[in-house]
């Protein structure tokens, strides 16, 4: 297994030196909730500057896997994990990095848009900085707000509404606000758990455009149930499947193009053609 070379970040572009997109690698990961084994033998390389899509039927462990990638898995009482997750070669579970630092470097966007209700649009964007105790000057704040909202494709729509409550925006706008919020702490990886499942087609397209623009600066891993979406935005794909009372496993992984048109495993073909799941 060779790690992709990471170009060093140009000076002055980021808050921390590692703000270039990072490679993420899972090695033989298994997960449990209590004694219930939900995921086994998952090995996957998520390359920088590419979008990796995780597909598969409900309950096959895609979301669980995604949540192991930034240590959100362990927030569930009774959850446990085996295997290694390497962020640019460093094991995030056994390394010396503090959990908060890992989560700052591996951001997450959730299925349901969840802007903080007690904060305005602008405050929501800055929430990550505030929550991790990073102080910012007034001018710096304005720059961050505009840059992150632009990257999330939301600036033009909300530039006059920065003082409105975050929840005053429409659902699609809220989700892009959440993306902007995740981007403000300059993560190297962005995990997205079905980010469009609560959105209408127009908003979905805007979010997809955002993702495609983001992949240059941040590694994107996205869980999706939408086959077309996986084809539209991802370069690599991993197909998860769980048998009855069996933990979820990766059936097939590789180039999205190949996975959808000429998969090696017949189960993959059945799934992407919509014959089950």
């Amino acid at each position: 297994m060779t790690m992709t070379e990471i170009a060093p970040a140009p000076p002055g572009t980021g808050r921390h030196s590692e703000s270039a997109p990072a490679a993420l690698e899972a090695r033989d990961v298994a997960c449990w909730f209590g004694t219930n084994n939900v995921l086994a033998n998952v090995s996957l390389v998520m390359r920088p500057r590419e979008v990796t899509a995780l597909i598969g039927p409900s309950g096959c462990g895609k979301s669980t896997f995604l949540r192991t990638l930034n240590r959100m898995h362990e927030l569930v009482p009774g959850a446990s994990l085996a295997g290694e997750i390497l962020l640019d070669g460093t094991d995030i579970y056994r390394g010396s990095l503090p959990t908060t630092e890992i989560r700052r470097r591996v951001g997450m966007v959730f299925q349901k848009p969840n802007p903080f209700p007690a904060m305005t649009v602008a405050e929501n964007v800055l929430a990550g900085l505030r929550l991790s105790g990073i102080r910012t000057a007034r001018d710096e704040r304005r720059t961050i707000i505009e840059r992150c909202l632009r990257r999330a494709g939301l600036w033009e729509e909300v530039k006059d509404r920065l003082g409105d409550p975050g929840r005053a925006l429409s659902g699609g706008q809220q989700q892009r606000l959440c993306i902007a919020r995740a981007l403000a702490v300059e993560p190297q990886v962005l995990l997205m758990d079905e980010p469009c499942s609560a959105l209408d087609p127009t908003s979905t397209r805007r979010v997809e455009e955002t993702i495609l623009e983001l992949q240059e600066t941040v590694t994107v891993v996205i869980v999706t149930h939408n086959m077309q979406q996986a084809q539209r935005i991802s370069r690599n794909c991993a197909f998860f499947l769980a048998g009855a009372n069996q933990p979820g496993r990766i059936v097939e992984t590789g180039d999205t193009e190949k996975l959808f048109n000429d998969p090696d495993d017949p189960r993959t073909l059945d799934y992407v053609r919509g014959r089950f799941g």
Partner: protein
Amino acid sequence: MPPVETAPAATPTLSLVAGAGTRAVRIRRFEARDAVLLVGSSISSLALTWLLYERLTPLSGTFGFWVSWYATFLAMVGVTNVVEYDAVRARDRIATVVLWSVGLGVITPLLLVVGYTIARGIGALRIQFFLEDQRYVGALSRADEGGGRHAIIGTLQQVGLAALISVPLGLLTAVYLSEVRGRLARPLRMVTDAMSAIPSIVAGLFIYALWILTLGNSPSGFAGALALSVLFLPTVTRTSEVVLGLVPGGLREASLALGGTEWRTTTGVVLPTARTGLATAVILGIARVIGETAPLILTIGGAFVVNANPFSGKQDALPYFVYRLVRFPQPAQIQRAWTGALVLLVVVLALFVIARVIGGGGPDHISRFRRARLRRKGLA
């Protein structure tokens, strides 16, 4: 019931286009004929019950009479509506009537208590009740002489101190129970529940035995505040815990996923989101203690003159003022007690309004102060 535009019977389609000529249609309507049915039912059931009680059966008794009347009234409402409309409408009307009467039944005692207090107390309420104490009041003074300034000051200081002690403690405990969920959460919750069941006189006895007898302090406003805290604390804790539990878990996850620590997640996301509910928790705590007399009897000592220092010397409090004066034989003293009760109601109302203003609207609400601060920070 104001007259309501009803839908013309000959409009079969529902138009969703609101134009200049479109009139809003009240869907659930209460027409004149419904009012007639209700009034008619109540009168006829009254007549029927009278007939039953006075002429046909040997039944007697006021309570039974009104219970029978109510039952007959419901039956009449049902029957008349079946005749006029149909069975579904009749059931709907009966349910409506029952709900309205239950609502009235709940609110009537409250209105009676408040109304009676106002009626009895307003007579001797002068502005000097807020400005003077009982310094120059003798046994034969008129009811509107002197005032309750000493008691108002005492109550505000005692409840304020109790809030200063209980609100931070209660909030921290609620955070522990709801956010930290540590190992001690279960026993702690049990202790809090047990505490909220303590009779208020026991709270007073406890502080009297501990603070005054054992530790050798004199009765003071602070001792009273301690006794009130015993009652205040569990109320704030349990209500805050419930309110914090209502904050969606997704917000905590979002905050942690941004790299926030548990503590910053609590202070930066959970508490601000629950702000309105927490204000309610404080209000409930204040409401629990502000009218308490029993914990104060043994702890504050009582006074007739202003003592603005709660840490030294005896103090008075409005409930204690009322309790003491209402047992005097002189009508003037009893009158003063009622005035004190009325002022207590006013103080409670004022505190509630203040807490509501501070608590503000929902979490989405951005107050003028906050907007100004945001503008200074360059965020709006």
